[in-house]
């Protein structure tokens, strides 16, 4: 494993240059700007392992656990360069979710066992929170874990579990008690080996006819007690706390930025820039993206100064996901009579995945807390409106 250094001592520019140079030289060309938003582990494992060898797989984990130990400001640079260079998304629930959770709340034994296996790619994680009847209202989840000897027996169903079909471990929210006054009490976080008997995974084809997410069934699945994270019945707070500064990335400009590049490509090829009506609409989208950058920076600055994000950061996620939709909708207008085809549209500068983006852009307004839920957060948490 490569020698780490104190990255946070560098200026953002210095770090950006070092990071970008290596990424550009090492991220395989055929994986750049992938059409697929959510490649499977095997499709991107080369890149995963290269990052792991370099010691750059896990930007935020402290260096003692094999991470780069980046502060939020440097993490933003990392994510920005990643997007700018078109690196593919890797199955990152272990890096972004399980790892930080264990570093903060795990036992020494859990850290020693799990963290290295995330870095090596031996364990690929997925996030088992949502259930058929617990989506926006996650606290109503019902998958149950009942104490049994030195462990628990889990029964129930998770759904919309992204990449569960290429994961071998799942971070599970389960109900261990119904006694609490608030429904949030009685929820426990568990680390579950998906190869345990009784776990069944069924992929669900999405609008793009890709199986990015799955149903996961638990039929009398035994989970040892040492795989509980934190206290039994006290998991809700942990699950919420782990999404600290990372919430800023839900509103990152990268998806709309990618979509705008594709709109520009199609518009140039189809002559749309000579249409004043289009230029006017394009200009609005362009400046919306530009201003999203400014708004993102407003929150990034808080993080760089060592601050923490408030509920107001939700405004980025709403704006970014809706801008992404507006851009893909405009792209279909430019496609004109061709906005009926499933396949990418050819142009002189390469293909434009107009339909792929249009369909994909339906999702970010739904996941990670739907935009209605985000607006609720803003209304109550920022404007202090009455319940």
């Amino acid at each position, binding site marked *: 494993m490569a020698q780490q250094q104190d990255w946070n001592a560098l200026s953002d520019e210095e770090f950006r240059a070092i990071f970008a140079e290596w990424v550009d030289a090492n991220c395989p060309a055929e994986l750049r700007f992938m059409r697929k938003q959510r490649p499977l582990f095997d499709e991107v494992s080369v890149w995963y392992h290269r990052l792991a060898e370099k010691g750059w797989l896990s930007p935020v984990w402290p260096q003692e656990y094999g991470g780069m130990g980046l502060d939020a400001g440097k993490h933003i640079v990392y994510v920005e360069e990643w997007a700018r260079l078109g690196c593919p998304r890797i199955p990152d629930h272990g890096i972004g979710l399980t790892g930080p959770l264990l570093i903060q709340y795990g036992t020494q034994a859990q850290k020693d066992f799990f963290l290295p296996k995330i870095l090596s790619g031996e364990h690929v994680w997925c996030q088992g929170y949502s259930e058929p009847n617990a*989506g926006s*209202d996650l606290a109503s989840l019902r998958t149950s874990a009942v104490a049994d000897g030195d462990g628990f027996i889990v029964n129930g169903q998770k759904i919309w579990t992204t990449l569960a079909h290429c994961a071998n471990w799942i971070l599970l929210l389960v109900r261990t008690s119904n006694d609490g006054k608030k429904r949030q009490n009685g929820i426990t976080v568990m680390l579950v080996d998906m190869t345990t008997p009784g776990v069944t995974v069924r992929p669900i084809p999405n609008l793009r006819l890709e199986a990015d997410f799955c149903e996961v069934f638990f039929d009398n699945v035994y989970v040892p007690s040492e795989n509980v994270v934190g206290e039994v019945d006290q998991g809700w707070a942990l699950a919420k706390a782990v999404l600290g500064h990372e919430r800023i990335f839900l509103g990152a400009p990268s998806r709309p930025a990618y979509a705008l590049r594709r709109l520009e490509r199609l518009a140039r090829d189809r002559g749309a820039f000579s249409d004043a009506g289009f230029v006017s609409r394009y200009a609005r989208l362009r400046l919306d993206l530009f201003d999203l950058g400014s708004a993102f920076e407003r929150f990034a600055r808080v993080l760089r100064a060592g601050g923490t994000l408030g509920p107001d950061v939700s405004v980025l996620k709403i704006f970014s996901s809706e801008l992404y939709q507006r851009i893909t909708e405009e792209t279909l*207008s430019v*496609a004109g*009579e061709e906005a009926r085809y499933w396949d990418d549209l050819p142009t002189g500068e390469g293909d434009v995945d107009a339909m792929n983006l249009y369909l994909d852009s*339906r999702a970010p307004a739904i996941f990670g807390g739907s935009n209605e839920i985000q607006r609720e957060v803003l209304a109550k948490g920022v404007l202090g409106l009455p319940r």
Partner: protein
Amino acid sequence: MNGLILDDPDGTLEMLRDSVVGFSARHAGPDVFRARRDNGGDLDREVWSAMAEAGWLGLLLPEDKGGAGLGIAEQAVLSEALGRALLTEPLAQLSIFSSVLLSHCSGGECARLAEGLIAGTALVSPAWQGRDGAAAPVSARKVGEEFSLSGEMRHVSAPTSATDFIVLAEADGKQMLVSLPVSAEGLRIETAPTLDGTRLGRLSLADVKVKEDALLAIGSEVDVAMDAAVTTTRLALAAEMAGIATAAIERTVAYAKERVQFGKAIGSFQVVQHRLVDMWGEAEFASAAVVNAVETLSEGQNNASRLAILAAKARAGEAAVNITRRAIHLHGAMGFTDACDIGLFMKRAVALNATLGQPEELRLQFVALEGVAA
């Protein structure tokens, strides 16, 4: 949700609606859609034959061509009902567009095509567009007793299932419509999948020979035929999209009543209610625009009917696309799956909206025709 409200003194329209409901109980639109898509098909033969049997093909062909001689109101009601039931066979192109063209043609070949079209034995697909959707006739050359055709056509419906194409061609500045059998030598067909689970073709004609008697129409008659075909098909598409819009709002209201989060139906949240009301309003406006266009066209094809049809297709297209994409959102992650029918409605709406002119293009044509903005 009323959909199209049209005068129906003898109950013909109601019977048509009922017959589509009965039909879709035997051929469920969403199932046929998925099966056809998954098989890489461009048309479901069994459904098509059943449609012929139901008397839905060539509805607009005049009686002297063997047709039912029914009017645009009947066609609009049928198209609306197909939209509601998500029956997605390429009726707009293979029945409506081709019928209107054939109504303006004469001769033995025209009669053969019309007869086959009605019976469902001939699948007659119009081939006339370039990539941008505008008319792009192939070039024709008279060689002895034959024509030689060369060029390329895009966006051709049912390219694999078609038995015959009606090709728009041009010779010495004169447009013509030519009947071209799928087996013609020198005809190459490439196909590509569409969003709505069918396929469109790209026809390449390299010195394709057709006999003189394949000529269906020539000269100014072609302009009239093409204009009528585009206009009528646009209206039928508008009706179909109004049907999709109505079905999508109905389903989403039903889902919002049923889906419980935070201990309540999501339809009890004011934000969701207001959004549903806006969607409903858009669907009502779409239906109103289509009815207006039907009634205006029933009085004759003129400037007023042109305006009304442009408005109807723009309004219904935008409504269908807007309503279905918001419907997906209100279905949450479920709406993002292929298993949920609401996504198929969205895909069909987007595809029909892109057919024969998107809303902005139609609105620009409207104001140009009115002349005020000129």
